[in-house]
């Protein structure tokens, strides 16, 4: 299978700080979630922030996360622009992301 020029990699995106339109850091990109669509798999969601990191590490945190503000967001594929993998940006206001459910 040959390399294509416009490919990108999960590991390139992992841990990158995602910023909103104003340049404020929303959280680090910690997980990419894929769904099967016919024969192909597609990335449909991105998880951001500390809650996402704890989920990725499979740590049960019983809802406790340091700080007061929401510690994790789930974004649809079209809510983050990954055309520059080193600097992913939100394409929508932060309020439109869903806050990750604490477990």
């Amino acid at each position: 299978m040959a390399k294509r020029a416009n490919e990108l990699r999960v590991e390139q995106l992992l841990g990158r700080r995602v910023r909103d339109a104003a340049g404020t850091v929303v959280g680090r990109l910690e997980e990419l979630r894929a769904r099967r669509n016919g024969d192909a798999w597609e990335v449909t969601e991105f998880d951001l922030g500390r809650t996402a990191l704890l989920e990725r590490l499979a740590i049960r945190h019983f809802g406790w996360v340091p700080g007061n503000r929401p510690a994790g967001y789930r974004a649809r594929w079209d809510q983050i622009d990954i055309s520059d993998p080193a600097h992913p940006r939100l394409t929508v206001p932060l309020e439109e992301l869903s806050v990750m459910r604490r477990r």
Partner: protein
Amino acid sequence: MVEPLPLVRDVLDKQIYDANDVRVGKVDGVVLLPRQGRPPRVLAIEISMPTAWRRVSTRLGDWIERLQQRLAPDLAGPTRIRFEHVVHTGIDVNVDIDGTKTNAYVWENWIKKTFVEKLPGGKGSGEKGE
């Protein structure tokens, strides 16, 4: 509705087993293809030393790639398994293809032929993929 697959938690860095339950390598990278107006497609999992080292340092990964090309130019190149061949993920990643039909063992066999077989007692164990 089926839960989405977490690519980092359940795929990246996991051990790959082929259709014969033989270890092929670890998932060093997951390749995506961004598409205009559509979700990025998950193209393949990749087994590659430069890919793994690039996660530590891009320069180190590039250096390893150059070293591979210098040592054995015809062997250089990552092993890619199309994501459609992935049948199970979690603790391990299972694929429905035969690992010996890929180039996953080329470096292992190269090291064996170049170094290990020249050591006393180093011959006779056969090659992976034979």
